[in-house]
């Protein structure tokens, strides 16, 4: 009886793994499609499957490293600093982080510019009405 339960737990874990791998495979396929159409090339199914394997394998390395980094800092929650540490050797990840930060910075600049303009407009209106008031009182 006990063995059967263990076996079905094994099966559940196995099918969970399969589902995750399938999800990765799908995402990798989409990404390869992008690259392929961009460069006017075609990927064989085996190549996509192989890249998918590599990706899945890298997740394991990432996970273990991240967990270790957090533990080293006496935390059980992984944060952005851990990810950045992980990225120190990964040129691609570093590039992605830089691009993301640029996008955020750009967005903030645009927000600030809008806010500044709004404030300036409001100031101009209030200054004009104040000047009008002063002129009147001088007279």
């Amino acid at each position, binding site marked *: 009886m006990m063995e059967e339960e263990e076996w079905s737990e094994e099966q559940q874990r196995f099918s969970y793994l399969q589902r995750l791998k399938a999800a990765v495979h799908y995402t990798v396929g989409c990404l390869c499609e992008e690259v392929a159409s961009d460069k006017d090339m075609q990927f064989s199914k085996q*190549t996509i499957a*192989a890249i998918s394997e590599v990706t899945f394998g890298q997740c394991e390395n990432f996970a273990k490293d991240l*967990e270790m980094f957090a533990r080293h800092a006496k935390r059980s*929650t992984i944060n*952005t600093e851990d990810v950045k540490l992980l990225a120190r050797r990964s040129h691609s990840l570093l590039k992605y982080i830089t*691009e993301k930060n640029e996008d955020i910075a750009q967005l903030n600049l645009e927000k600030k510019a809008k806010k500044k303009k709004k404030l300036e407009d409001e100031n101009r209106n209030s200054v004009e009405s104040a000047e009008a008031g002063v002129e009147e009182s001088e007279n």
Partner: protein
Amino acid sequence: GKRLTDMPSVPQELVSKLLHLHFKDKKTKGVFLYLSSPGITAEAAIRSVRQAQAEGLAHVDVEQLEKVLPQLLLDF
């Protein structure tokens, strides 16, 4: 080339599940902000394409990936 942030990214939930699969401690958690990036997948794809192009092929097969894999794994 194309910006990495323009490429399709891995859904956050999938990233989270994948990482949790390999955590030793059940208590480990986190927000894995940048990890949805195309990362090694895009790099593997792009390098394989370049290899195929260098060989004058219109099709990327496993042979091309095999040639770029060693350096790819070293770089990551």
